[in-house]
């Protein structure tokens, strides 16, 4: 299908909206009626037609507006994109992977014509037609990582692998769940995850690291992660927390359905061919509670997950103060019926809400 790109904002007037298409394909992150940390990895080799899993780098109706929002963030704070000196080759690897994947997966939107190291890249939604020399930085307007990730939805952490450890040595981070690339750059895997509660004690990060170190070229992996965001704000950065934090206090029983968003990260992991670095795209999807509960199974399940989540996790995810308000709203969409296993909406088989 041809995607109709929205003109919308993720700040100020928050005109962001999901179409019915975007709601149905939303990556709902709960496969059962409760949630706890796990190393929930699976192979990233496509998925059901139309789902966010289908393509290597999903492009949706928010693409053009998300890239405009990224440009605003970078103009205000160029430190959101950084690359330590030894990571330039990994930046080229990233550029190649994204250009090749997008041109193959979305031939109507993107074209890549390669004649030796002379490459022509056409990005139709963003109106870009650029010829450059692969591996020659002087032929790009900025570094290769910044160049391509200004044209690709989601954040990108580029992890160098040395001595059985991963290091956060480059990235483009403007749609993050409250972490700072500028602060964390150069840290090892355990250090940048240090502030996460409970998961260290559970051995989650040791197992995750072991898995990630062994990811091979051509065999990417994926997982979902989630948090909560008031207003469809992409840039929930620590840098700007003193500006957006107060928005959490604006929820009321009347506006919560429109204002409160479930924020889901589709995290994927790719081994890069020349640098042996690991590319870690973190794609953010937002959905308003009022849209989410139009899928009866998701409404039932989200209520149960939020209700039963350990206090420590609700605090870490930043919604402990709003949890009572969220439960008041969500309980109206939970009739107590059982839910089908798995994350898919199952609209044809799950019963409508019983009132």
């Amino acid at each position, binding site marked *: 299908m041809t995607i109709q790109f929205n003109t919308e904002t993720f700040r100020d007037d928050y005109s962001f909206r999901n179409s019915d298409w975007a709601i149905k394909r939303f990556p709902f992150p709960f496969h059962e009626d409760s949630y706890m940390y796990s190393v929930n990895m699976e192979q990233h080799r496509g998925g059901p037609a139309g789902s966010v899993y289908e393509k290597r780098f999903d492009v949706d109706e928010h693409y053009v507006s998300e890239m405009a929002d990224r440009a605003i963030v970078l103009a205000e704070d160029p*430190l959101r994109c950084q690359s330590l000196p030894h990571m330039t080759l990994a930046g080229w690897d990233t550029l190649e992977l994204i250009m090749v994947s997008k041109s193959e997966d979305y031939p109507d939107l993107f074209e890549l014509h390669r004649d030796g190291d002379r490459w022509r890249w056409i990005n139709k939604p963003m109106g870009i037609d650029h010829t450059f020399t692969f591996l020659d930085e002087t032929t790009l307007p900025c570094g290769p990582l910044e160049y391509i990730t200004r044209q690709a939805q989601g954040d990108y952490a580029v992890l160098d692998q040395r001595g059985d450890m991963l290091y956060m040595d480059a990235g483009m981070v403007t749609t993050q769940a409250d972490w*700072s690339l*500028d*602060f*964390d*750059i*150069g*840290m090892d895997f*355990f*250090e*940048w*995850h*240090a*502030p996460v509660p409970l998961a*260290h004690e559970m051995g989650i990060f040791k197992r995750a690291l072991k898995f990630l170190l062994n990811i091979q070229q051509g065999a990417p992996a994926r997982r979902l992660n989630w948090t909560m965001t008031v207003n469809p704000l992409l840039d929930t950065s*620590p*840098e*700007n*927390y*003193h*500006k*957006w*934090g*107060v928005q*959490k*206090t604006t929820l009321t029983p009347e506006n919560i359905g429109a204002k409160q968003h479930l924020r889901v990260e589709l995290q994927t992991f790719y081994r890069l061919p020349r640098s042996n670095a690991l590319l870690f795209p973190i794609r953010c999807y937002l959905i308003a509670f009022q849209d989410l509960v139009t899928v009866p199974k998701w409404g039932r399940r989200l209520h149960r997950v939020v209700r039963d989540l350990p206090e420590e996790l609700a605090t870490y995810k930043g919604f402990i*103060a709003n949890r009572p308000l969220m439960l008041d709203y969500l309980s109206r969409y939970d009739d107590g019926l059982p839910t089908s296993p798995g994350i898919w909406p199952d609209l044809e088989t799950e019963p409508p809400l019983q009132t």
Partner: protein
Amino acid sequence: MSKFQFPPSISSRPVYGTLEPRPGKAHLMIADAEGAEALLDLAASDAALFANAHIIYIPKDTGETYVERLRALGPAQFYVGPSYAASVQRIRRVLSDAHMGLQVYLAGTEGLMGQAQNEAMQAGIPHGAIQTEHRGSVARRMQCVHCKGITEDVTTDPFVCSHCGLNLFVRDHYSRRLAAFQGVCIDAEDPGNVPEPVELYK
């Protein structure tokens, strides 16, 4: 002076050891204030080390307390500086002239050790090969995550950013590259509701 035992914390927070003599062609020792005591203890276990030692010492508010005792260890080079900032060019020069076999010893406050460790890392020495020992003040070097300004010698939580004036809480999340802990606005979700500052670790 007894050594302060930092409570167990998250994995990005630095941990410090006890300086011990290691074989090397040259020994670079950087200390501030009570960090001098760690060097004196080091000398007690191996005085011969100091014949090839370069001591860079910033007394801070200890004044002359330790200076003559350090000089009496007979280091090959001895520099007493008025501040870390004043000594950093010298530290860079020493590190750029260094050869294989240099041992680095850092002692004193977290801010001093963090910044000197950062210089040594930039010179190519892995942080795990640098010895550290905490002595003296438990004050922290904090970076405001909002304005990126550094506030030195923070002793309370919360504290006021010396640059942008926001009220920040003191996290244990630490960046070796910045040689600083992270300070985050404490009243972002309830402007004006700032708890009374309490002394760190109290």
